[in-house]
């Protein structure tokens, strides 16, 4: 990768032609930027235009009607998403923060590299495979699909995201802060818990929000864990609905009323994810490197 500039690769004396090539390529790069932005605008526009008319109070308060009947709502899905995302975050985040602390504060440079690598590899596992894992780990022994299985799958997905952010945020805390604490005779673990962690707290919290936004939109890991449910369920050991699952069922179903509700539910989900993402980016940007 130590490529040097090779003057022989700049060919020809025809400066007019070279300038023309320069302009054409510059224009192509600009076109690439436009092409990349268009889908975002289109998806947002459609979700807003199609979703807004169907977004109303019954959608949030009522359960789905029997297939084909108009009306009803996606209340079980909204509640289920909140419960499973919340539980998944509670399960995954503490482990993730502790792992991040180990990587940055305890592991030597080799150990840190090794565990960072593992964290990255875990982040790259397809979410559907995580779903199969939770199925084999929880659903098969329990003998039933359940909300807790869904939450565990989501916890596995949020784990590497938060671990990595914690690692990076702790890295932003200057070494002099730690040294000042050591100089006062404070043991390392107390330095980390009482001094370093609070200094990095806002960055870690935004990382958690980002992870929440990610797992809130996950469908694949819930199919064979939470399964989905037409009714409001309060039991963690029973199947539970989730917004992405409901959108999937309704979008691929045959009824117009379902399609409308799928758009409205998508608006809810995108709104939720967007708020979290914007919030995160705003705070991260103020904090420097990781938020560029």
């Amino acid at each position: 990768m130590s490529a040097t500039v090779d003057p022989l690769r700049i060919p020809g004396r025809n400066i007019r032609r070279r300038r023309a090539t320069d302009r054409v390529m510059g224009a192509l790069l600009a076109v690439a930027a436009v092409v990349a932005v268009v889908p975002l605008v289109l998806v947002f526009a459609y979700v807003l235009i199609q979703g807004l008319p169907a977004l109303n109070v019954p959608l949030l308060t009522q359960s789905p009607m029997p297939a084909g009947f108009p009306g009803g709502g996606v209340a079980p899905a909204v509640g289920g998403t909140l419960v499973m995302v919340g539980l998944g975050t509670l399960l995954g985040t503490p482990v993730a923060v502790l792992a991040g602390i180990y990587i940055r504060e305890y592991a030597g440079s080799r150990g840190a590299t090794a565990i960072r690598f593992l964290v990255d590899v875990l982040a790259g596992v397809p979410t559907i495979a995580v779903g199969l894992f939770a199925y084999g780990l929880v659903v098969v022994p329990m003998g039933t699909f359940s909300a807790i299985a869904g939450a565990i799958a989501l916890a596995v997905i949020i784990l590497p995201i938060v671990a990595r952010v914690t690692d990076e945020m702790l890295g932003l805390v200057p070494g002099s802060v730690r040294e000042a604490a050591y100089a006062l005779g404070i043991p390392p673990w107390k330095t980390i818990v009482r001094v370093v962690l609070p200094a990095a707290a806002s960055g870690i919290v935004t990382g958690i929000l980002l992870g929440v936004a990610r797992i809130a939109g996950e469908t694949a890991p819930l199919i064979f864990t939470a399964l989905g449910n037409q009714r409001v369920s309060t039991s963690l050991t029973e199947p539970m609905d989730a917004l992405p699952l409901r959108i999937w069922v309704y979008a691929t179903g045959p009824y117009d009323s379902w399609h409308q509700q799928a758009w409205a539910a998508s608006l809810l989900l995108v709104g939720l994810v967007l708020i979290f993402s914007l919030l995160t980016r705003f705070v991260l940007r103020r904090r420097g490197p990781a938020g560029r």
Partner: protein
Amino acid sequence: MTALPAEARRVRTLLAEHRPRHGESLFRGLVVLASLTVLAVIAGLVLVIAKESLLGIAHNGVAFLWGTTWDPVHSVFGALPFIYGTILTATSALVLATLIGVGVALFLVELAPGWLARPIGFMVEMLAAIPSVVYGLWGIFVLAPWLRAYVEAPLHDRLGALPFFSGNPIGIGNMAAIVVLTIMVLPTVAAVSRDVIAAVPDSQREAALAIGATRWEMIRVGVLPYARSGILGAGILGLARGVGETMAVTMVIGNAPTISPSLFAQGYTMASVIANEFTEATTDLYRSSLIEIGLLLLIITLFINAVARLLVWRVAYSATSRSLLA
């Protein structure tokens, strides 16, 4: 025991009070345990999925990998249509996303002024924030009809003789899957490429400009060769994402276990067959065969990811965390 001066004794008792008891080792144990959990989860993923697919492995044998028939009713399970569909959609999407993504990255780093680069970069990153299932919904009701009317029909009329454009253009099929996947892979490729290109030292650019290069020649001669391995890593990260992507593809690809070169044909991918058929799988063997596909998918993506991370890490460490955040 000789008597110590009073001062020294007081210091000693103070130190004794602050002497770490079990706090340090406890905390250390806790964070080590958390890190081991990451390892355990990865190992668990492979082991649990492997265990659940044992039944399928025993029944299907090695022929599973090249069997072209997927007939759950007669318990004939061949995974080739799904492997083919995954390779077709993921690699096509990767090529498109790399072309566009590297273009965007170069535009943002080399050409665009800051007031333009920031919002565009932000919007490209936001592409990754939209849930997969929303892309799928949009794909079914907006993209597929549009493709059918304005892309597939004209192609079919003019070039229908080619195998790529044969068959009935109905919108739902390989082409829609490739387009949706391109959009979803794009932010990964663009974000990592941008970081890699931004990490190219300015001396590279100055050297090229000093010998009279135009701006594009500077990019071609000074920037791209330097960023090559990082961009390759970005592409492979994108590939891993494309291979594992499930919902959006499931919703627009048509879900038919056929092997066709046509972009109009309905297909199936490894991830989408699991998502689509798992809850309908009535026999243990059927379910286990689906999980066997999941095992295959897991091994492939673990491998692709490991290679990509190693490539990108050498160039820009922070780039991988950006792709995580994206």
